[in-house]
């Protein structure tokens, strides 16, 4: 299916997943992910060109509801569980500018 996953690839994937791994974790995860992915060889051999993929097991699709206004979550109750709040909004550290 593909070549064995490398330590560099694992480090790259950690970045994509917004995780920071220690050197020990990188070593361990490289071996463990390779172990799991090796099992994918079981299905790599199958000829599946004419088989459609399944996303919903029972094939339910296009679910609609009446387009009517409904109450939403209470803003204060939602914000009460947020790590940081200002003026009724979620507050975050700088995303642009000098801090970057």
């Amino acid at each position, binding site marked *: 299916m593909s070549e064995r996953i490398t330590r560099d690839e694992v480090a790259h994937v950690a970045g994509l997943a917004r*995780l920071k791994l220690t050197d020990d974790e990188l070593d361990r995860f490289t071996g463990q992910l390779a172990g799991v992915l090796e099992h994918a060889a079981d299905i790599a051999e199958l000829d599946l060109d004419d088989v459609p993929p399944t996303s919903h097991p029972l094939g339910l699709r296009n679910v609609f509801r009446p387009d009517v206004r409904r109450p939403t979550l209470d803003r204060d109750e939602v914000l009460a569980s947020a790590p940081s709040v200002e003026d009724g909004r979620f507050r975050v550290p700088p995303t642009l500018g000098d801090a970057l």
Partner: protein
Amino acid sequence: MNDTALSIAASVRSGERTARAVIEEHLETIAAKEPELHAFNRVTADAALEAADEVDRRVSQGEDPGPLAGVPIALKDNICTRGVPTTCSSKILEGWRPPYDATVVTKVAEAGAITIGKTNLDEFAMGSSTENSAFGPTRNPLDPTRVPGGSSGGSAAAVAAGFAPVSLGSDTGGSIRQPAALCGVVGVKPTYGAVSRFGLVAFASSLDQIGPFATTVADAALLYEVIGGHDPNDSTSMPGPALGVAKALDEGVEGLRVGLVSEMMGGVIEGIDEQILARTRDAADALAAAGAKVEEVSVPAAVYGLTAYYLIAPCEASSNLARFDGVRYGLRVDAATTAEMNIATRTAGFGPEVKRRIMLGTYALSAGYYDAYYGKAQKVRTLISRDFAAAYENFDVLLSPTSPDVAFELDAKTSDPLTMYLNDVLTIPSNLAGHPAMSVPYGTGEHGLPVGVQVMAPALGEAVMFQVGAALERSAS
């Protein structure tokens, strides 16, 4: 054996005893055994007593609080409860109090049930032993040196220990059925879409289902009927009301066609304990003696289930868990920029197994790999569904063991993720196919520990599944 939900509800509705007395009794059991077992992340004693008084007030005024009147229920801690911390046994949800109830929570409350606590799980339901909890493992009430299974290990242990006659769990690859088997209780994974998942913290959205644990098949049927039915808040939920199943319990199995899945009976899928296979054959024999036609049947693609699952579930998890970024709820580890804060929060908040699965899923979905991994696994899923559909043309239900092992000792399988993943090899195919499946206790295996037999039925075939489950329960006792 402790009181069943049916007997508690009957006595509370008739005024024979109070809901408060029922709750106090269960809180005493919890006080005695919980310190050793750690089934709960939180016991909601005060709220439970308050709810009990409300049930008693309604009874005293001649009202009927519902079919679960005064019944204590334990909820897996990935099911949202308004104002009550919902942790998923993860540090990343620290401090979060959901601003709404899951639909199943609303439904059980409307039926008169009383939430007694939130149960421990493998972090974000990823695991098969409840050892991956940020708050420490749960122990098996039948032998505290052993695991209760997982990921709904706390919910299974709570029922087995008599903390509550019923509980709710979630099952993505076997997380209700496997712990039910290991704790000697009944566990049900409904048809995909039969029970609303609104308010269930998502793990793998094309697989997750909420379902009941109970000490008896009849109690599981009662709870199933309460939680089932369409929910406009869950676009994956099936149209129509809850399926009626309780009426099927006493129908017997005369003339039913029962298929023993040959791939799951040793030989093809390896590593299934001999005594567990023997109990499963005993169960098949008992159904035959009760009038069912039992034959072996092949479901060839079931052998690819584990591989397909360990691609599909991590891919969906990596996407679902992207929402835990320190912005809107739970933990935040401060940093100079938002991007650094996201990384610091996720790195500190997620445990090793969750990180492993996020990494696996992120890799398998990344550019150049999507078709080879997720795409291919979704096609394998179609093969599995087709093979089950073919089997159901000739059989009303299918039978197999639930778990390849009885309850194992703590730390026995923690060193190698693949060894742990193999626990789900017999339960995963049902999640991939979307059909209902349940585990019913059937005798004992090694060390006198309980064995679970799995009954599978076609999609929306819960009635016949419960019918066979009830027959197995009668023959086991």
